[in-house]
């Protein structure tokens, strides 16, 4: 791996967003993910190589650490910010088709629930794994999910809920989607959820953390 890609990977994993960012203290004054991704492109490294050999493995490592309790929510968010800073240089290559996304992931917090931090972290991590994330926001009912599926027929759906009262709304959304698209894959997550609840409502997978969702999605990658 080139030195630029190695440093870029380290910046993603450590959350070094750009040169001006004071975090982490040990990397103060050094180039961050923003500068290094641009340099990698300037060095003629192929965009899909940058994504698949540097960015995605770095996000995967921080995701694994989070799953193991070795990294915490601030670490995930700051790494995701570094990832976003790098990805802005790669977006034109997605648009041109030079990089193909792994697929579309439609995510939303279910109707009646306005909490978004869990959804946002999952969105960042899944995007960091090379998926196109369509974030429908919060308080999302079945009709919006159905509209999203019409627009992205091969998408995987992610439902998030933080409250015991609103997680029950997931069931009607799962039913509405599965009635029209019986083979649609639906992932669920959120603080009050469990594997038992996932099975009860007919969803396909419950993930207690973002990396679990990423691992599950791999089998559906384009």
């Amino acid at each position: 791996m080139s030195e630029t890609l190695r440093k870029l990977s380290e910046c993603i994993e450590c959350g070094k967003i750009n040169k001006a960012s004071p975090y982490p203290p040990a990397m103060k004054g050094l180039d961050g993910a923003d500068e290094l991704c641009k340099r990698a492109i300037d060095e003629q490294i192929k965009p899909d190589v940058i994504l698949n050999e540097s960015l995605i493995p770095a996000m995967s490592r921080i995701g694994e650490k989070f799953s193991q309790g070795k990294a915490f929510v601030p670490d995930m968010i700051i790494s995701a910010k570094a990832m976003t800073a790098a990805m802005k240089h790669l977006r034109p290559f997605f648009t041109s088709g030079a990089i193909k996304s792994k697929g579309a992931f439609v995510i939303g917090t279910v109707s009646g629930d306005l909490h978004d931090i869990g959804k946002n972290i999952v969105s960042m991590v899944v995007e960091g794994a090379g998926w196109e994330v369509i974030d429908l926001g919060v308080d999302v009912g079945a009709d919006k999910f159905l509209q999203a599926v019409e627009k992205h027929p091969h998408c995987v759906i992610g439902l998030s809920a933080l409250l015991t009262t609103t997680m029950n709304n997931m069931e009607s959304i799962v039913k509405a989607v599965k009635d029209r698209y019986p083979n649609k894959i639906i992932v669920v997550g959120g603080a009050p959820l469990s594997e038992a609840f996932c099975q009860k409502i007919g969803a396909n997978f419950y993930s207690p953390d973002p990396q679990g969702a990423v691992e599950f999605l791999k089998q559906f990658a384009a």
Partner: protein
Amino acid sequence: MTLRERFHEVMNFNPQVHSIKWEFGYWGKTLHDWYSAGLPKKRYPKLSRTLTTPTATLYAPAWTCQGVDKLPNGIAAMAGGLYHPTQAFPLDSDVRDHFKMDDSQRLVDVNLLFCPMFEVKIHSETDQKFIYTDVDGVKRVFLKDEATIPTSLEWPIKDRRSWEQLKAERLNLNNVKDRFPANWPQRVVEYKKRNYPLAVGGYPHGFFGTPAHLIGYENLFQWYCLEPDLVHDIVNTFTNVWLAVYEEVLSQVEIDHWQVWEDISFGRGSMISLDMVREFMLPYIKKIGDFLKSKGVKIILLDTDGDCNDLIPLFMEAGVTGMYPFETKCGMDIVKVRREYPQLQMLGGIPKSDIHLGKKRIDEFLEPVDRVLKTGGYIPFGDHFIPPEVDFENFSYYRTKLNGMIDQYGN
């Protein structure tokens, strides 16, 4: 023996005195269902639009936007295990009286956030949504159908510039007496002749809790990394405000305990690393804790939901003497915690969501409660507000059995 005396004896692990009969609280819908199922309705919990301080009446505009006659489904009625007044939650009397439970602990009603308070501003209202700015300066949306606690949309501390302005205008120490409600002298008279435990602090006052409440969780998580000095300044400023207020309170009335609200843990453990807890929280907890202990306030209770196993020793290091509510579905095991921390005061620890599963399950989960009751220093109740899936019949069985269990150990 008064409830206040009993509270101290229980918290001091006196085996001659039996524990206290509290619940954390009940959702509004739970109470509605129980009234329909036969709970005598003698004193329906009251809502009020009157604003006193953020401590007592935060969220009141949302809870009362559809009137004051019926409890919103997602409001909580207080039942002793959590203090009153807080968050404009009403106090339950009917469940308490029906099951001969104990009166609630109380919280000193004083402004611990921005002074002067923000004016309540209604931004928009439809049949579905009520969007407003509350007295703490946070803009929130209340969904009328779900009627759960309003969700924050915008926060008053947006960056260093907004913080410096708020600090100068609403967090200076020149107006500590303005933080007390208009009827403070009457409250002092009442507090002095009270028979219930009285606390300072409460929701939303904590060393992670308050910054998260006023900055937004996602923003705070980034600021821990990108703006650590700013976070320290915020926590330090509130610490000094609270010290000044508590000094004033203690000059007039004796306090029984300090309630610290954090909610820093979730199903996977602490949201922030233990190093961050050590750096951004512990010195400030210790500062106030040491002051209160010097004034004879020796009980410090910290509220954090979720899996707090890794946090217990850290908070004890800072002087915290007890914790709650020990959410069982997040892996909190009161027997294991008692074994590891024999002197930690514990409250909660009962799987509230299992009460509806019936007598066999109730008997099962009360067995460890019995074991920990024997050791003292424990007030058992559901590990958060009792949800609507708990029917009155099963709650009756559970509560009656638990009361009997409590009565077995001591006078």
